């Protein structure tokens, strides 16, 4: 019954409120067939609620869900062409592994041989062919996880929804299963929607990632886009280490780069919106900052002097905390090549923040540069209101919202 060949999942302006709290705030996602799509965000960002709405366990307050192009508004969970791998697996404790996996097949009109064949196939797929007559309680966490996967995959759903499926496993097993899971997804070609708060998981497995925060999508893109070109401070901070600095934008420098003022110094940022003005955040990854001796001859742009506050040896690299004259402290990572310059704690240094590594970030509720759709007035107005309330939104963002 849960058979689908198409596998597209489209969410349009989904909203879900619990009392006064808006768990999911106008989320729009268009997931093509066969994609490994991740929703990444901290707990409480609305990713699990979104997943539960797709599965049918929660009713959206507004917005539409299309699975295989079909509107799911009045479909109960047992009629939807998606299956879920639950966070705690939810394997039926009173059934053995085989019966757990066959549970869904037996709800349809299949012959007994067909059920047995497909169940065995699914168990072989997750390498648990020998474990059919075991109880879930007799399996290890990783094995239980695979049973849950087989139980959902055996129905050949249009989409597989995974709710932090590796969350309960230890780090080593998790890394191993990440690889297996990705291989499995490529093998079966089913659309995966994967919910996680673990950035490594999302980056290693996904075709595309939606980074979520406070019920909204902060940024959506491929893993490299998200990591290399974070649009907002939240995304930059959530994925990998980032140095965030408060800045004021002064627009284009005539060469397509943005002039930003940080702590009274003017820096040039080549990444992000070059015409940005007003209060902004700029960011640079620790590994992109260069450190020099203060007396070294240099004509590099964005030179800032500072002092080493702390130096941490982490084997493959040195991590330095440097207090800049800009009034902020940044983290610098220097690869341990064996012949790199050493900097002692307390030493005066010169930090170079190369323009081609310095990025101007979008304020959280400002529309995207690529002409964000103005269709939804309520979001942007609400967004602007929130921005004012938090006191951080510059005039330009407010105008954009109005």
């Amino acid at each position, binding site marked *: *019954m*849960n058979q689908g060949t198409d596998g597209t999942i489209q969410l349009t302006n989904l909203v879900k409120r619990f009392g006064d709290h808006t768990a999911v705030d106008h989320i729009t996602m268009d997931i093509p067939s066969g994609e490994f799509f991740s929703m990444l965000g901290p707990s409480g960002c609305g990713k699990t609620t979104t997943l539960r709405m797709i*599965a*049918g*366990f929660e009713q959206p307050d507004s917005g539409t869900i299309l699975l295989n192009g079909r509107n799911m508004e009045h479909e*109960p*969970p*047992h*009629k939807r062409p998606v*299956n*879920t791998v*639950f966070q*705690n697996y*939810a*394997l*039926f*404790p*009173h059934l*053995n592994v085989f019966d757990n996996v066959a*549970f*869904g097949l037996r*709800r*349809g009109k299949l012959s007994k041989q067909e059920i047995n064949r497909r169940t065995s196939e699914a168990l072989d797929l997750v390498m648990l062919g020998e474990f059919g007559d075991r*109880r879930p*309680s*007799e399996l290890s966490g990783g094995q239980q996880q695979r049973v849950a996967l087989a*139980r*959902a995959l055996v*129905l050949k759903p249009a989409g597989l929804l995974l709710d932090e499926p590796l969350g309960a496993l230890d780090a080593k097993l998790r890394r191993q299963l990440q690889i297996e899971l990705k291989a499995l997804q490529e093998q079966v070609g089913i659309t995966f929607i994967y919910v996680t708060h673990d950035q490594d998981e999302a980056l290693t497995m996904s075709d595309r990632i939606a980074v979520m925060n406070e019920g909204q999508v902060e940024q959506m893109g491929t893993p490299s886009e998200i990591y290399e070109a974070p649009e907002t401070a939240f995304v930059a901070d959530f994925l990998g280490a980032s140095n965030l600095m408060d800045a004021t934008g002064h627009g284009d420098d005539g060469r397509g780069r943005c002039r930003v003022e940080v702590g009274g110094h003017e820096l040039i940022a080549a990444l992000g919106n070059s015409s940005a003005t007003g209060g902004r955040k700029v960011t640079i990854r620790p590994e992109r900052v260069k450190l020099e001796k203060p007396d070294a001859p240099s004509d590099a742009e964005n030179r800032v002097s500072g002092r080493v506050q702390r130096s941490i040896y982490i084997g493959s690299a040195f991590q330095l905390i440097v207090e800049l004259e800009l009034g902020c402290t940044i983290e610098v990572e220097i690869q341990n090549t064996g012949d790199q310059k050493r900097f002692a704690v307390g030493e005066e240094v010169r930090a170079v923040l190369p323009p081609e590594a310095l990025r101007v970030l979008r304020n959280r509720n400002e529309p995207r540069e690529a002409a964000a759709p103005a269709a939804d007035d309520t979001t942007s107005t609400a967004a602007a209101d929130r921005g004012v309330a938090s006191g951080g939104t510059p005039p330009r963002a407010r105008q954009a919202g109005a």
Partner: protein
Amino acid sequence: MSAVAEETRKPDTAARLLHRVRALVSNPHGRPRALMTITWIYMVWTILPVLIAILFSFNDGRSISVWQGFDATRWYWGDPVNSVWQDPGLQSALWQSLKLAGLDMLIATPLGVLLALGLARWRGYGSRPANFLMLFPLITPEIVMGVSLYLVFQYVYVFVEPSTTAQVLGQVTFSISYVVIVVRGRLLSIGRQYEEAAADLGATPAQCLRLVLLPLMLPAILASTMIVFAISIDNFVIAQWLSCGAGCDTVPIKVYTATRSAPLPSINAVAAIMVYLTLAAVVLAYVVYRFLTRGERAKGQGQSEFAQMGSIDFN
């Protein structure tokens, strides 16, 4: 030389002795002796009266307080007039008690399970008051319950005469709360995840109930059945208020009236029979439970599950 050794050893021995004594009372690694003592005192205290009552059902005389020798059968069926088997009053009381308990069990358990399902899965306005109301029969004094039921049947539901029917209705009203509380506790502790998983895999709500929820609720259902049987078979107040007279007398009513006139050990015998029956019911429930979950257990797990059967979760 030895004197010195003696002297150094003396305080050592004293300290060790003191340590020993203290360890008896408060050794964190030892057996919890104080708790064990209290537990045993409590067990003996509760079981002793029952054992004495049963013992006197084997008395070879007409006294229920003076031991006159052992006779295994006299008050059960040996005595041609006064034994339980020969006395029509006792026999009918026993039969009435069993009938009430059996019917109560058969009616209150399914109703209570359905109510528990409704209450546990009812999200939204009204669920809290409804859950609280379920506790009412438990906290209302039984005598108040009995009198009110009597008045209700007397003046409101006048079509129900004081009779076995009224007694059953009264006991069901009273005992259904126990079922609800035990089963609801189990439902809350297993959570919604299995239901959601079943629905996700294509099970209709009815299949979900039959294939997932019922098997998972089974221990709680059996436990509540046992509780209903136990509180119903020795119910006095409600059975008395809704009684139709001698024909509706239950064992407790019979025992009560007998002890006010001239009690015979046959009263002990009939009471002892109730104890045997209750024990048999517990054993039966255990066997049924083992049978129904025979495949489910990982080795050595079933015992503890059964022990948890009656545990109540007041979430």
